[in-house]
């Protein structure tokens, strides 16, 4: 018992056990969705703030009268988890995403099990970020963690809705495809130490790891989990599941590159990322042009944005990583802004098809505006949150090959056209006269989210501090 109490004072144990305990309690009281969501939101935002301001040079910190060992490791089986300066910012960002999702879920239901399973996801992703040692290097075990976390995500994406299951199902595919490639690479890594003169094992290991991570990044044609889920899943749940997964893959990719530098030297990872990113951004724009369903349109816009991030990652130079993180930050803001609007639109109108949304903006103007501005931010429309990032990305890509930047710009134009078409539907004649007006609190929250989004569009330097802090984690 004393050992257990001592173990629980280690920060990794405190974080994971408290999140899982809260998840268990939230599951018991899952019918009280709003209350549970608010409590979870307040708790995770408190944790996020604590991690953000944490000074790891002090070994101990008092929390509610109990000492917490900040840098003490936690050993479970063959795995060791530890909070370090390299992972604390990423854990804080993940918790902040969770807090935003839970607070938005208090406005519009995301399914009875969203909060408990969302807290479980946060515990799982925190464990992945904190993994310091394992039977293999933790970066090589990333796909195995992601298989388990994607399986949990599938439940919150389906949310008990009867019907199409393609999105949650396809979420499982990239990590399951990727894990053998990355684990096989360990054999070649062992060979490098046995025969340092021979370069072939390093090349083979680099190829396997690079290909495995390319699969994990889920570019086109492995993208369909995101776009299918955008049509059927609760919007806030999809935002949380997608952003946590993408944050984890990007972070673990950089930890892998930091641990095994030969991955970028001996494999054409940059070239693969460049072409995969281009295909993803272009397909996202083209498909968005043809999408009438609001959820699908949002999903394809997010895909376009993801493609731009991959292209920026492929660009050589010191500016690419900060810009990629800047884009990730703006993506987070834009996706949550759009999800805030979409979730209320879906709840009030009963669906996200064009027929359901006809004229809905006359009754739900603030939430409609949040959806449109968030969606436009994902395709880099001027005066939206995504514009500064996309503009900088086009410039950096155009320095290498202006034709690629032009193609992506045209593709984003297709998505913008689709948003204009949807805006005409939303602000057109009202089809459902019994549609209720948005409540003042809901409208106020949507207005606040819009204000944040517009502020970042007008003053993107507001993100400089957070991006610099997260950059320290990514740079290793």
């Amino acid at each position, binding site marked *: 018992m004393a050992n257990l109490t001592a173990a629980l004072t280690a920060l990794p144990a405190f974080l994971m056990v408290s999140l899982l305990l809260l998840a268990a309690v939230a599951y018991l009281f899952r019918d009280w969705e709003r209350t549970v969501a608010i409590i979870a939101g307040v708790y995770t935002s408190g944790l996020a703030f604590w991690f953000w301001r944490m000074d790891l040079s002090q070994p101990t910190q008092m929390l509610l009268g109990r000492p917490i060992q900040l840098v003490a490791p936690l050993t479970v089986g063959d795995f060791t988890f530890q909070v370090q300066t390299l992972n604390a910012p990423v854990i804080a960002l993940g918790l902040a995403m969770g807090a935003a999702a839970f607070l938005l879920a208090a406005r519009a239901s995301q399914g009875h099990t969203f909060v408990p399973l969302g807290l479980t996801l946060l515990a799982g992703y925190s464990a992945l970020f904190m993994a310091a040692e394992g039977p293999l290097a933790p970066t090589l075990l990333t796909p195995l963690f992601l298989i388990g976390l994607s399986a949990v995500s599938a439940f919150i994406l389906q949310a008990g809705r009867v019907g199409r299951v393609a999105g949650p199902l396809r979420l*499982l595919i990239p990590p399951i495809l990727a894990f053998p490639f990355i684990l*096989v690479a360990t054999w070649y890594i062992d060979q490098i130490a046995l025969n340092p003169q021979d370069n072939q094992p390093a090349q083979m290991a680099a190829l396997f790891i690079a290909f495995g991570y390319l699969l994990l990044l889920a570019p086109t044609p492995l993208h369909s989990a995101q776009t299918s889920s955008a049509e059927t899943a609760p919007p806030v749940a999809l935002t949380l599941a997608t952003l946590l997964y993408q944050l984890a893959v990007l972070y673990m990719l950089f930890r892998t590159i930091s641990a095994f530098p030969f991955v970028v030297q001996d494999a054409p990872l940059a070239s693969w990322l460049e072409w995969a990113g281009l295909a993803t951004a272009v397909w996202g724009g083209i498909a968005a042009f043809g999408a009438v369903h609001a959820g699908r349109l949002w999903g394809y816009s997010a895909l376009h944005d993801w493609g731009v991030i991959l292209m920026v990652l492929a660009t050589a130079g010191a500016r690419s990583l900060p810009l990629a993180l800047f884009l990730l930050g703006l993506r987070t803001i834009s996706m949550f802004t759009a999800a805030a609007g979409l979730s209320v639109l879906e709840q009030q109108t009963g669906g996200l098809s064009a027929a359901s949304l006809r004229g809905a903006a006359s009754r739900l103007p603030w939430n409609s505006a949040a959806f449109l501005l968030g969606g436009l931010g994902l395709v880099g429309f001027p005066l939206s949150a995504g514009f500064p990032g996309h503009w900088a990305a086009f410039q950096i890509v155009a320095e290498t090959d202006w034709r690629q930047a032009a193609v992506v710009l045209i593709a984003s134009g297709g998505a913008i056209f689709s948003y204009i078409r949807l805006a005409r539907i939303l602000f057109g004649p009202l089809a459902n006269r019994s549609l209720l007006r948005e409540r003042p609190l809901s409208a106020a929250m949507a207005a606040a989210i819009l204000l944040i989004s517009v502020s970042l569009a007008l003053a993107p330097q507001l993100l400089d501090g957070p991006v610099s802090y997260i950059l320290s984690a990514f740079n290793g």
Partner: protein
Amino acid sequence: MEQLFAGLDFFATETGVLIIMAVIGLMILTWDWRVALAGLVVVQTGVAAMGVARTGLPAQWAGVQVAVMLIAAAMLAISAVQTPTSRSLRQAGNWPLRTLAVVLIYLAWRTIDVTIPVPGIAPDMAGLFTWLGLAMLLMLGLSDNPLFSVVALLLWFIPAQVAVAGIVPHPSIFALIGGLELLVTLTASYLILVDRLPAAARRPVMTDVVFPDQEPKDWGVTDDAEEVVDALPLPGFVQDMVDSGRAARRSQPPALPAPNSAAPALPLPPGGSENGETISEQTAAKEQG
């Protein structure tokens, strides 16, 4: 356990490899959940026996692998039998189409002669693993059906676990992968249930299966879903199984309404019936016919 796998060592021969490859082909051709789950267990047993005989995989580990697959197959079977139709609502074309796809993939593979190099694995075994990977991709490409998708993913787990056990002989990695197999199966079992609850079934046009996202909006519920999903007859023994199940259900007397009460007529959604008949009316007409 050693004795069990010693008795199965014929799987390590060339004939054994051919048997496993044929079972995989059969799973795709028949596209029936019973055949798929049985095939999954056979493939797992065969590959595990091959691993014991050829790569030095400990028999206990192989036994655990087979046990995990048996549990996974049982979980999927429990979900499958709870669904209203015995066959998928998102059928992957008909069996001639699937036969052509399997033959095409096999010929393309033999022509290009690509084999994924796996350290510590003999070339013929690596060839089998490549075929398993191709079959997995084909199954994923043929349908969005959760049962067959997870069967495909479990097929991918089988060679991966044997290869990883040889490369990283660490019990915790082996146990972790086994646990993840069960978690993925649990997720898929849930998705099978929500996918197959009374949702939709109508005769798809042959070309529409290529574009599964373009489902007609007027899909309606029929209780003859399994009669209409395939446009062409199934292979003999599968057709027999389907027919016997169907005959057994028809032999049960329909639930009669109480005397002097109206028949419980379930209205079909638009498009479920062209002439506006209800399910009970259709059933009654069929009984009389």
